[in-house]
């Protein structure tokens, strides 16, 4: 893992404004940004560890611990609200057995709110591990729950 991470850091070392692309690449490869490597990232880009940590904590996407096996991001913005997002959220919370914004104790699934996925005419909508899903009510919602549980 560490040598791969060093390769990623090296790839971005001379890129202007490298921190976000670098963090994305690390997270893509490892699922999260290992906190014990923040010092190396900061050193490579010649910025402080505080600044690096500040960026990681500012953006919702970045995390410093492994993610759940499946991450469901349900859109809770206005257009989906108008199409029943709150009811979909209740069904998902009940079906998956966890509250919105949390990861289940067994680490199998996390349910996070998202604010617009650009599926505003076909809501309720979600991104499930980067895969878009829309018209999430009734059987389609039940199918999602069953798939995540399996």
């Amino acid at each position, binding site marked *: 893992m560490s040598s791969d991470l060093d390769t990623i850091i090296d790839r971005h070392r001379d890129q*202007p*404004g*490298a*921190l*976000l*692309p670098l*963090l*994305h690449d690390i997270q893509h490869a490892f699922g999260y940004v290992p906190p014990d490597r923040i010092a190396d990232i900061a050193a490579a*880009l010649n*910025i402080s560890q505080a*600044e690096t940590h*500040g*960026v990681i*904590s*500012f*953006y*919702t*996407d*970045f995390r410093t611990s492994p993610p759940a096996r499946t991450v469901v*991001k349900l*859109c*809770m*913005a*206005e*257009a*989906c*609200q*108008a*199409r029943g997002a*709150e009811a979909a*959220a*209740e069904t998902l919370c009940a079906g998956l057995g966890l509250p*919105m*914004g949390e990861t289940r104790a067994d680490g199998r699934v996390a349910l*996070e*709110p*998202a*604010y*617009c*996925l*650009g*599926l*505003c*005419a*076909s*809501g309720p*909508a979600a*991104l499930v591990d*980067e*895969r*878009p*899903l*829309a*018209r999430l009510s009734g059987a389609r919602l039940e199918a999602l729950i069953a798939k995540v549980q399996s």
Partner: protein
Amino acid sequence: MSRRVFVPGDTAAVAVGADEVAAALAKAAQLAGRDIEIVRNGSRGAFHLETLVEVETDQGRIGYGPVDPADVDGLVAAGLFDGAAHPLRLGDVGALPFFSRQTRLTFARAGITDPLSLSDYAAHGGVAGLEAALKLPPEKVIEIVKASGLRGLGGAGFPAGVKWETVRAAPGETKYVVCNADEGDSGTFADRLLMEADPFLLIEGLVIAAYAVGARLGYIYVRSEYPLAIRMLNRALEVLRRAGAIGTGIDIEIRVGAGAYVCGEETALLESLEGRRGQVRAKPPLPAHKGLFGCPTVVNNVLTLAAVPFILAHGAEAFRDFGLGRSRGTMPIQLGGDLKQGGVFETPFGITLGELVDDIGGGTASGRPVRAVQVGGPLGAYFPRSLFDTPFDFEAFAARGGMIGHGGVVVFNDTVQMARQARFAFEFCAAESCGKCTPCRIGAVRGVETMDKILNGQRVAANLELMEDLCDTMRQGSLCALGGFTPYPVRSAIEHFPEDFKAPTLAPQVPKNSGAAKAAPEAAE
């Protein structure tokens, strides 16, 4: 020759099963011994028809939709590959009222062509704008864009040509063009559809802008919530590099956001591009003078840059002839929420809100009466039916206490509780505030608290007065539109739907799913 079958591969189609439809069609064709070529086009923009399958036949392109994967075998048995009759058959999709009533200058190719085929692109009018531009001196290109009346379609409506002129005239060797594709406003998706259905058009517009202002590097900053758009842009750049069409004189880099709404604000976006927290910068200096890495920078929205190739190819007049007042050309309006027919509807400025909701959108999908329409994203005002005669135009909406923003129209039926929507506006602002200025960072939190008191029936009149004061402070004192415009949805809800803010009608408790506050814990720090 094999028969071409179009199955959209963009987010709106994939989200309702287009990949499964494509796979089922391939399998059914094989079983039937038919030689077909499946083209993954983008959606044409009528999302209620997705998955929309089109077949190229002797009678032209025949559409079927909405097609569920389970419908495929029946469709193929009925003769889909020959354009035969079926209850889902739509005939010529372009002739449907949703499309025949549009004026598509920017979305002319969306849904028609293979998004990654350069020959398709050129055969349908692509590249003509860039070719015309490169024959002219950069100053002349800017003059044409100015004469067209094109304004920033991200929401601010600033004249595009004037911005370009400022950057060109600004001293400095290095200049940048940055495309703002951080389309975070809820109810908007035109940028996404354009990037997925016709990515070369955005790249062409960006290259023209770079040529005009003297930039050699352009960035496209796309939000991470759009994984398919990111993939599509990267593939489009790859196609162009392989064809030797890009990378020598002017290069383009795709950058991905990380889930911060505020990065749609241009200075926060520049901070993010430079590798920092997406915190808003105080203006001046304007990005046109001192933008990315301290250099003069054009920051334009996707739709603004995508409108440019048409203007160069057909002349400023051809664009300016469309529109109303100071809003020239067309606007790709996005219809969403509780509507029967939602999607991208590109039309000259001037169409009324009522036409959009009742005629084009066909009323609500739920069948309930329309109660409120939020125009312009989460920072836009809620309009009641009595304002449906408002023409879609920057100034007309501003005159009525609203804004068109990025062109999102979100329809709510009569079950909506407007006091809860007002609370949500503050909740969203609290979650997404960058924290740099006090009116936004603290005002939003105080707004949620005060709305909770109103929702619980505590001293309603006094708290509404306090709310008015708070809105004033945020409006006048915030650094950017996030804090500054949050009062729009709040005030419009109070003004147009006062009955929802009277104690007896209020819900007894605050909503259950208040996830926003948990989404971004840093906002509460």
